[in-house]
């Protein structure tokens, strides 16, 4: 059944038991992203320690795909240098925009590879990227604040 390809166990696990959820202080910048077609939203904060992502905290409401992908995001980027975090983001975006044709690298994306099936459903790609867009925006804001 196609449905299981999209809703991998890993995704459902992250959805039911999200990692890093909740908004925490202190933080350097915050981003609020919405998906105007469905009304899903996420508020995400980043806390940086120099060039390292010290913490990512978030809150929001949305479908299993958007919530699980934000949970996976925290696993992938917290504790990592910004450069590496962005490499992972680029790999995830490439996977999601690949319409199911991109072979994900588990060493880079870890649980994120479970989203390969989602990429076959163009309407859901935005859901999977919601938290990542918030992360990108929050980092840009924190850099803007420093400059």
């Amino acid at each position, binding site marked *: 059944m196609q449905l299981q390809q999209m809703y991998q166990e890993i995704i459902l696990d992250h959805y039911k038991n999200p990692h890093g959820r909740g908004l925490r202080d202190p933080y350097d910048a915050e981003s609020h992203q919405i998906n105007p077609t469905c*009304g899903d939203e996420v508020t995400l904060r980043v806390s940086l320690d120099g060039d390292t992502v010290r913490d990512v905290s978030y809150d929001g409401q*949305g479908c299993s795909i958007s919530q699980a992908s934000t949970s996976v995001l925290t696993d992938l980027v917290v504790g990592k240098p910004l450069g590496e975090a962005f490499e992972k983001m680029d790999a995830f975006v490439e996977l999601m925009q690949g319409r199911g044709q991109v072979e994900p690298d588990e060493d880079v994306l870890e649980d994120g590879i479970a989203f390969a099936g989602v990429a076959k459903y163009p309407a*859901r790609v935005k859901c999977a990227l919601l938290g990542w867009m918030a992360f990108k925006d929050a980092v840009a804001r924190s850099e803007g604040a420093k400059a």
Partner: protein
Amino acid sequence: MTTTATPLDVVGVRADFPILGRTVREGKRLVYLDSGATSQRPKQVLDAERAFLETANAAVHRGAHQLAEEATDAYEGARQKIADFVGVKYGEIVFTKNATEGINLVAYAMGNAATAGPEAERFRIGPGDEIVVTEMEHHANLVPWQQLAARTGATLRWFGVTDEGRLDLSDLDELVTERTKVVAFTHQSNVLGTVNPVRVLADAARAVGALTVLDACQSVPHGPVDFTALGVDFAVFSGHKMLGPSGIGVLYGRRELLEALPPFLTGGSMIEMVHMARSTFAPPPARFEAGVPMTSQAVALGAAVDYLNAIGVDRIAAHEHQLTEAALRGLAAIPGVRIVGPTDVVDRGGAVSFVVDGIHAHDVGQVLDSLGVAVRVGHHCAWPLHRRMDAAATVRASFYLYNTLDEVTALVDAVREAQKFFGVA
């Protein structure tokens, strides 16, 4: 509604819609429950559009040749059919790109009244004036009014919605006052299915000299609607929700109002006389149809009206009533499902929105899709209404003449399947 009428022959109707024969998602029978977003088109409508293009296509209202004459006749003939369909006169129907454009046309024309002649006096709007809408509006009947208020300094006010999804008219006298210039509201909510008391609002507006603008997108396709009897000043509906093509919508305006209303879009076709520094404008409806209009779409919409008339709009309304009743009953029987909107069929059309505890609407929709059941998920362009109803997003099934009771059962079964899949049953 006549009780003696024979019921709609749904098997015969379905045979007219080629798309209903296809399968989706690994061979699942298509159960199309998204007609509130867009309806499917019968062969008769598709054939009419093709026949026009193969035999009579030309730019209308210009050209000295036979094709131009035939195309113009076909285009204006469609206007007459559509006018008859909604109980108004030929010259009171304006073709627009869609219903959204029809509402914008009225809102922008009102904004333009400030610099138009004295005949446009009654459309002028500014600080101290009020525009009244409702909390259950589609964004198409909300955002243009917000914008008109922002451009002119007028104030936007609105009717609330009750917990059960009815319009709250308890403050009617405070909302519709001598300050009110426009009352814009939906005939039938695209989310709740609620049918609003048009006459009550139209009477209240008329009593204070305010204009009424009715969003009839969800009513005209589904049953008998007579704008003259309803007493509204303007109304809009879209072609693609009533078995016709996309790219065409209809604006109704009471003749004397259209005659005084300044133009919105300007250019070719809508003029009377053009000089280098100034122009005068054609009478309605031409004044509001700048440029070469959508022609085959108008012809096909006329064919859609023929089709609906042949089936009978009373019969369609009765059929949908039965489907809606079955859907409300079936969904209400599932623990964890909450209907967003009236749970009875009194003054209620065939849009049934709901939430499923523990599963986001997108995820419900995905499971339904995997079973061939096509529904809409999200806020359905009615975000403030969803906020009011404490729902971030809903699942909406919407019915039309080609849907069957078996499809309602398929919907209900699929919702139970979604609960099982996400472990919330």
